[in-house]
């Protein structure tokens, strides 16, 4: 009996030791897995920032306080070219003239720069106004473009596509999306409009925050001080009208402003290979297509509707209103 008790105690002790060892091994494995994941995330972020420097960092030149009008106009042209090469959208001469004047005044301190909070309010007001004036045709076009790049030779597996928005996709059939967007358009003119405006503001705030946070970290020589990344709050330096326009474009298109023109083309070629491999069917070539904007090869968005001359000038009106105060 005593021997049995001894054996039982010994077996229990061995089981406890093995259990403890197992626990240690599990904890170490989990810790290593988290550490590896954190390394992978940090490495991914570093490469992401390199790509932003290669894109907006290399291809956009902003003017500095005291620069003559010619330099300021060249800065406006560099943003216009950058947006055009990526999305096919080009601003009129009159809009560029206006933007250059506004930029000059902001750089000279005659008008104040916008805080990120002010920029969010401006983008919300502009988006909300545009939402209320959408035609039925434009709503159909929005549905069509948000469902991604389209081409007659698109693989059959991509026939049923979801709506792609910043940070998420929405699985919703065309008729329901169109009906709901029409209903939302009507709501902008009712009491529900205030709630809708709040919802729009939150969505814009979230997207803008992600953009300015990445830009502040990746290209501090261009966006330094705009966002306090460590504190996750407004950095206090504010943005000029030209910076505001570029951030608005980025938020409207889900263009993260990565990659130079040459590297963006390489990226699209890589995407073609990747999509072909994944789908098991040939994916159409990116040749002749822009990466972003209407039927964008990487991300398609209704830029012709939400970033048209009239809407951009409405946004500039709002910027002028805020900058003067």
């Amino acid at each position, binding site marked *: 009996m005593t021997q049995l008790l001894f054996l039982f105690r010994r077996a229990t002790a061995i089981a406890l030791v093995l259990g403890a060892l197992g626990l240690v091994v599990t904890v170490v494995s989990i810790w290593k897995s988290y550490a590896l*994941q954190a390394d*992978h*995330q940090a490495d*991914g*972020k570093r*490469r*992401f920032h*390199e*790509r932003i420097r290669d894109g907006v960092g290399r291809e956009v030149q902003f003017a500095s306080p005291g620069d003559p009008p010619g330099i300021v106009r060249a800065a406006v042209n560099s943003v216009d070219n950058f947006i055009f090469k990526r999305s096919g959208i080009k601003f009129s001469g009159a809009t560029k003239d206006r933007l250059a004047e506004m930029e000059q005044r902001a750089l000279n301190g005659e008008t104040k720069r916008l805080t990120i909070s002010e920029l969010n309010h401006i983008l919300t007001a502009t988006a909300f106004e545009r939402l209320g004036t959408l035609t039925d045709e434009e709503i159909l076009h929005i549905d069509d473009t948000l469902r*991604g790049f389209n081409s007659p030779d698109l693989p059959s*597996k*991509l026939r*049923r*596509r*979801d709506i*792609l928005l*910043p*940070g*998420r*996709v*929405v*699985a*919703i059939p065309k008729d*329901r999306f169109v009906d*709901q967007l029409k*209903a*939302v358009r009507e*709501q902008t003119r009712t*009491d*529900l409009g205030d*709630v*809708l405006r709040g*919802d729009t503001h939150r969505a814009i705030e979230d997207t803008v925050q*992600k953009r300015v946070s*990445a830009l502040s970290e990746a290209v501090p020589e261009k966006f330094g001080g705009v966002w306090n990344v460590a504190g996750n709050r407004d950095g206090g330096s504010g943005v000029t009208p030209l910076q505001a326009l570029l951030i608005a474009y980025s938020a409207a298109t*889900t263009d*993260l402003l*990565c990659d130079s023109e040459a*590297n963006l083309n*390489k*990226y699209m070629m*890589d*995407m073609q*290979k*990747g*999509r072909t491999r*994944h*789908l098991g069917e040939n994916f159409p070539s990116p040749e002749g297509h822009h990466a972003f904007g209407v039927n964008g090869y*990487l*991300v398609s968005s209704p830029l012709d509707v939400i970033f048209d001359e009239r809407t951009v000038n409405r946004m500039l009106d709002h910027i002028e209103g805020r900058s003067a105060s």
Partner: protein
Amino acid sequence: MRKQVQVALLLFVLGIGACTGTQTCRISGLTHGQAYWYSYVDADGNTHSGDFTAEGSTFDITGVDDSVDCSSVDVGYYLMAYNEA
């Protein structure tokens, strides 16, 4: 209270993430700037497929049928030659 009802009404109107019979599947552990593909089959047997670029560590697929098991959503990343070097 009125505000709450309005929010509920608005979410109903928008039908985004708040519809009966649908759910949001969250994909996590993503890497900034990396291009991913996703794919899943809905209750009617239709395959939903698409891609996106991660802007954070998570990405949501909203409006997914309740009957779909979120863990069955297939996700992978594209191997990009030029920026992996």
